[in-house]
Each structure stands twice: as structure tokens, then as C-alpha cells.
């Protein structure tokens, strides 16, 4: 088996010599970035053409969201700490820091659910907005929902990596899987930085 595997071992990726997986993840993230880019560009075009677009921070309130932003930055820090731990061969550190990252992601989702519930109870939905253009509600729920779906996916992905780590799957020599989930998680953080600016602050 190992001889066969060695015989069909593909050539090294020229862009990411340590793994093809990393190149694959970057290409996926580039495509995903275009999805978010299209949503934000559409948001900008609809908003610029509207004469009754509400002032976002008056409708949404930014204190809670600022805290959610801080939470994702914290979870990005614990993510890199987890990767640094396993690169030193520290499997306990990996589990600890990734568990904290998951906690950050789950708390973010809980706060987003709270925020959505509050806004819906005020009458802001996909098709209604008592504060002005209903497209404000449409774009708000579509963009934050698309991002929330990514956080949900990231939490599941991280949980799988933690479980594999507990089974001794990762070590100082084999930490590639942790780096890949890290790339995805930081991307979700990066996108939120942009969503926070365009949807909440401006």
C-alpha cells in the first residue's frame, strides 16, 4: 500500500510546496471572496440608488456588533495559537486553543441570533422595513446570513479537526490540516471586518 502510494505521489505544488491542500483552500477562498464581493457590491448599488435608505447604526445599533467583531478577532488569535501549539508538537495546546476558537464562533452565532430576533420583532424582515427602504432588510439578512452560514460551517469544520486531534491525527510534522482550517477561519474573520464596515458602520 505504501509503495503504491509512493509510486503515485503527485508532484509538489509549485505555489504551496508544503501541500496541495493549501493551494486548494486558497482557490476556494478566492471564489468565496467573490461571492461576498458580489453581495457587497450589490448592496452598494442598491443603497446608492435608494432615496429612503435608513442610517444603519440607528436601526441596527453597533455596540453589540462591535463586541461580535472583537469576539471574532479573539477567536482568530486562539486559532493561530492552536496552530503554533501543534507545530511545537503540543497536542493539548491544540485542543485547548481550538476549543476556545469554537467557543468564540458559537458565541458569535448566539449573539447574531439574538440580534436577528430583536430586529425581526421590530418589524425588520426580508420584505419589510419600518425605517425605510425594504431592500435594507433584504440585503442585511442576506449578507449577515451568508456570513453566519460560513461561521456555522467553520464551527463544524473546527469540531471535526478537534476530534481528529484528540485521535492523535496531528503532530509537529503533520499539522497541515490545522493550518487549512485556520485559513478558512481567518477568512471568515476577514470577511466580517468588511461586512461590519459596509453594513453597520458606513
Amino acid at each position, binding site marked *: 500500500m505504501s509503495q503504491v502510494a509512493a509510486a503515485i505521489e503527485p508532484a509538489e505544488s509549485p505555489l504551496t510546496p508544503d501541500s496541495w491542500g493549501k493551494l486548494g483552500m486558497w482557490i476556494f477562498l478566492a471564489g468565496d471572496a467573490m461571492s461576498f464581493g458580489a453581495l457587497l*457590491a450589490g448592496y452598494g448599488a442598491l443603497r446608492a440608488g435608494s*432615496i429612503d435608505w435608513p442610517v444603519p*447604526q440607528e436601526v441596527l445599533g453597533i455596540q453589540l456588533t462591535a463586541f461580535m467583531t*472583537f469576539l471574532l478577532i479573539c477567536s482568530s488569535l486562539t486559532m493561530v495559537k492552536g496552530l503554533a501549539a501543534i507545530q511545537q508538537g503540543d497536542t493539548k495546546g491544540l485542543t485547548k486553543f481550538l476549543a476556545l476558537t469554537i467557543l468564540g464562533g458559537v458565541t458569535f452565532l448566539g449573539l447574531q441570533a439574538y440580534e436577528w430576533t430583536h430586529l425581526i*420583532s421590530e*418589524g425588520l424582515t426580508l420584505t419589510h422595513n419600518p425605517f425605510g427602504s425594504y431592500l435594507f432588510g433584504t440585503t442585511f439578512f442576506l449578507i449577515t446570513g451568508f456570513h453566519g452560514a460560513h461561521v456555522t460551517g467553520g464551527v463544524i469544520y473546527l469540531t471535526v479537526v478537534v476530534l481528529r486531534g484528540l485521535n492523535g491525527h496531528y503532530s509537529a510534522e503533520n499539522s497541515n490540516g490545522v493550518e487549512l482550517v485556520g485559513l478558512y477561519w481567518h477568512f471568515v474573520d476577514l470577511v466580517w471586518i468588511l461586512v461590519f464596515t459596509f453594513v453597520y458602520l458606513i
Partner: protein
Amino acid sequence: MASNHQAPNYNMVFIALTILTAVEIGVVFMPISKIIVGIALILLALVKASLVALYFMHLKYEKFALGIVALSPLLICALLIIGLLPDLAGTKHQTKVSAAAQVESGEQVISGVTE
């Protein structure tokens, strides 16, 4: 996986991101022109996004060609925005029919949810 670069100081990146977020909140409430606030916010967001990509995602230590892969969405999104510009020259739209009708239908939705 043998990355031969020195690991960046992640704590400093974290502190920078936190401070920049605080600055963003401060900028929003500054009594200056909306245009300047908007430009400042976009610049701050781009700095924060770059910090995450360069240090947390290690893009600074990757090959140049991978950087091109990573930045390709920016170019395509720029083209998309240029493509959308003609739409902005059209008639402005107002989706809110009347305040009373909107509130009324809004209340119907709320009562539908609570019942």
C-alpha cells in the same frame, strides 16, 4: 510544513486589530463630513483585512504567485463595481410606499410571528 520563517508576533497583531476596531467606532461618531468618515472607515477596514491576511493567514510568508491567487478576487470585484456604475446613473428608487402602509404591514408580520 517546515515553515522556515520566524512566527509573527500574533499578540501584537491582535492588539492592533482591537485598537483599529475601537478607532472605527470612534470615527463613526466624529462630527465631521460623512464622506471623510466613509473613506476613513474603508481605509481602516482594508488595513485590518490586510493584517489578518498577511499575518494570521501567513500570506506575507507565502510565494508571490499565491499572493496573486489571493488578490484575484479584488480585481474581479473592481470590474464588477465598474459594471454596476451605469445603474447608479438611473432613476433613484423609493421602495417605501407610505409610512402608514408600511407600519401596518409590519405590524401584521409581527402579530403573525407572535401568534
